[in-house]
């Protein structure tokens, strides 16, 4: 006696709890792996999961078993040329006979246990690193949002979207259209009948025929339906991505000799966060990378983060270049302009007031938001002093912060999110 049961509709994610537990147990390892992978990824490449590898010795479940050594007998299939009593050289590296069942059971071949995490999980670990509050995490990791908007009428839909007025109007038009010929004919016949009746020819065959025709026509007119399926119109809803506008993000970074790779890595996280935030709010985002030491240059992302230069620092060169690029390519009526500047605080002493002047006089009036982060554990220098004045004057669009580790990045964003116009995004 057999029962056949279709289980395909039962839940398929029975293992999710266990998977979750595994991820929780190896949280630290995964965070490290995520951190490492960020350095390999481009800022704009946050839309996919990641393969995580953990050394097998960390995930190994111990059990008591025989080690190698001692005197062992093993039976193998597939003998070709051996005879009893033959001696064989042992392979180098004592382990010997690694083809036996035992060794392969323990899977010693692989020294890394690797698996995939999803995009959401990836972002989660990233945000964790940045100490983002949950609400912000959620906002940033959500995929594109849509608003439904009414758009015209369609002939198919659900009853709740039925447009009564439209449908009846259609029905009316159809009834007129379908009956116009018949009515005309009817009128003619009625006129003819009246003529005959006027002649007092009550029951001649002609009159009877006319009457019959008239009744037939009237019956057919009656059969034209009041409301037909064809008439029904439904309100249609379309999904519109919201909001849909363009933004450009300027990444400005000091690449002078004093900027170490660690500082650049922290800066990169800051840019990623800004990018994710902008992505949430804008349909189309362009990135411009400007790096500078004593002179500024627009470069590719790869060069921006990973090529090293030495020399002094003149920050104003980068600001000038940005101003130039904005004027050439990004008319500020079309584009929402964001800029993030990262530096270790070094600047040519005489240059700092000039920077403040460029920003205050022209740049800040063009941009939506300008963020300056100073990644240094040390005392502030001239540039910070010069910018402090600006942040008072342009509190709504200029933010600055000192960052010592990735966890400090978020406060800069809090200011950004706190702004009235972005309340809805939060």
């Amino acid at each position, binding site marked *: 006696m*057999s*029962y*056949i*049961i*279709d*289980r*395909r509709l*039962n839940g*398929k*994610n*029975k*293992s999710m*709890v*266990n998977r979750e*537990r*595994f*991820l*929780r*147990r190896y949280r630290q390892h995964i965070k490290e792996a995520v951190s490492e992978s960020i350095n390999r990824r481009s800022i704009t490449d946050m839309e996919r999961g990641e393969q995580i590898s953990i050394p097998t010795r960390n*995930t*190994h*479940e*111990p*059990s*008591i*078993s*025989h*080690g*190698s*050594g*001692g*005197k*062992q*007998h*093993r*039976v*193998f*299939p*597939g*003998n*070709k040329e*051996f*005879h*009893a*009593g*033959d*001696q*064989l*050289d*042992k392979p180098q590296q004592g382990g*010997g*006979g690694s*083809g*036996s*069942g035992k060794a*392969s059971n323990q899977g010693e071949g692989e020294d890394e*246990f*690797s*698996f*995939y995490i999803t995009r959401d999980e990836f972002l989660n670990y990233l945000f964790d690193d940045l100490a983002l509050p949950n609400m912000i995490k959620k906002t940033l990791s959500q995929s594109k949002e849509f608003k439904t908007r009414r758009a015209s009428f369609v002939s198919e839909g659900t009853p709740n979207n039925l447009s009564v007025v439209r449908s009846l109007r259609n029905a009316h038009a159809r009834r007129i259209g379908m009956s116009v010929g018949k009515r005309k004919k009817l009128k003619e016949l009625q006129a003819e009948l009246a003529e005959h009746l006027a002649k007092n020819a009550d029951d001649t065959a002609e009159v009877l025929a006319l009457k019959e025709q008239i009744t037939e026509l009237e019956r057919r007119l009656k059969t034209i339906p009041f409301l037909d399926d064809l008439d029904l119109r439904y309100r249609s809803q379309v999904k519109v991505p919201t909001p849909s506008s363009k933004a450009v993000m300027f990444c400005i970074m000091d690449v002078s000799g004093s900027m170490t790779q660690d500082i650049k890595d922290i800066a990169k996280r800051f840019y990623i966060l800004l990018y994710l935030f902008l992505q949430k709010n804008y349909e189309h985002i362009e990135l411009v990378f400007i790096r500078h030491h004593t002179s500024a240059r627009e470069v590719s992302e790869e060069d921006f983060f990973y090529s090293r230069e030495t020399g002094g620092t003149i920050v104003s060169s980068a600001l000038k270049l940005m101003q130039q690029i904005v004027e050439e390519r990004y008319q500020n009526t079309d584009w929402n302009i964001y800029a993030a500047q990262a530096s270790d605080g070094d600047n040519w002493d005489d240059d700092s007031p000039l920077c403040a002047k460029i920003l205050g006089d022209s740049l800040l009036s063009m941009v939506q938001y300008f963020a300056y982060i100073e990644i240094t554990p040390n005392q502030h220098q001239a540039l910070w002093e010069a910018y402090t004045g600006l942040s008072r004057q342009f509190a709504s669009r200029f933010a600055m912060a000192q960052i010592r580790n990735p966890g400090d990045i978020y406060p800069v964003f809090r200011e950004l999110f706190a702004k009235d116009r972005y309340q809805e995004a939060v």
Partner: protein
Amino acid sequence: MSEKAREYLSTDSDWTFELLEVYDREIARIAKLYKLDTYPNQIEIISAEQMMDAYSSVGMPIGYNHWSYGKQFLATQKGYKRGQMGLAYEIVINSDPCIAYLMEENTMPMQALVIAHACYGHNSFFKGNYLFRTWTDASSIIDYLLFAKNYVRHCEERYGQEEVEQVLDACHALQNYGVDRYRRPKPISAAEEKTRQKERENILQQQVNDLWRTLPASLKAEKNNKKRKFPSEPQENILYFLEKNAPLLAPWQREIIRIVRKISQYFYPQRQTQVMNEGWATFWHYTLLNHLYDEGKVTDGFMMEFLTSHTNVVLQPGFDSPYFSGINPYALGFNMFQDIKRICENPTDEDREWFPDIAGSDWLETLHFAMNNFKDESFIQQFLSPKMMRDFHLFSIYDDDEKNKYLIEAIHDERGYRTLREMLARQYDLSVREPNIQIWSVDLEGDRSLTLRHTMQNGTPLSTDTHEVLKHLHFLWGFDIHLETYKDERMVKRQSCPSVAIEE
């Protein structure tokens, strides 16, 4: 066969529920001709994702939650998504009714193969083999697993997930030592477990308290008895010993040990009958479907597809092949059952000399006898014929770590047959495969330390994991652990936890 007699059950490669029923009925009918006695079947159709779930919970339909199953799942998922690994066509559970999972992706011939293999092959093995009859209770396992899952979850709610995880980790490390090898365990029953579990908690705690009583009166009594040896006999079931005697465990922790122990006990027969179980199931899918073909109920195309996968299943690559990963239990088991059938039906002179009892006897009866009364080790010892050894080109090597060369000690020839058979059988003997470790003594009056004794076999040392396992043991016992390795009645090594003092 005349054209008229050929009435195919189906000609399409797609399956439907109606067709599954038809095939199942036909296969059941033929299975009856061959006297296959089975539990009722519960055939469940599942998707690939669900198969991955089933995989990662050691094939159990319900299990308590633990990170190690998540690890298993991630590994399976990765392998499957990358296409490195196909999923099994089926998973079958030793329960009553016998649950078999079939993947929806399978074609009709594959579903028929799986039904014959799992629902009539494995199923009859579960019902007939003496180990399963003695050690597992098919009717109660699902209920027990449900009880275990709920109990573990309840503990997590009450004592915290991490606390529970720590106990489970420790138990898993010792799960192969949670088995009664020689005594028949009481059948488990979920209903009973629940009602008596509370009661047991109290009694257990009381017994433990008695053991560790420190009141002066009993101390005096003990002194009179000189030194009380505890346990009086060495104990091989380490988890059982801990459950009953560990001084510091809370009642719920003892219950969790018990759960791991019971489940480990349930799998114990499967670990000892892999070759036989797979061989038996493979032999029957082969025999049953061929019978179906001979009756003219399936098409040639059906047979081609069936034979292709059957051939893949019973492929045995040689030791020097890149695909070699040990002796394939399907291949060895299937060919041995085929060989026994051959010995019964067409014995050669050699067979008559080696197997006087079965040569020329009724093959079906002999096969059933073998299935009922043996485990891998004894099955090979009893039934591996010289012809099989020749067909497989078996040879045995002797590896002495003090010499720098392997010795070929036996090959498939007249002089080697007996040694070869002996060696292969030993390879499947659990007591040889797993180190012999027993609870030796507890220092009741002193530091309460627990001493285990490892008796070395053939000078093989323990794996490097052992110290990690001792840490888990230490966690459960609560006091020092010593593991002494004895070789020829002489202690050669002593490991301790927590102190890593190694004395030669």
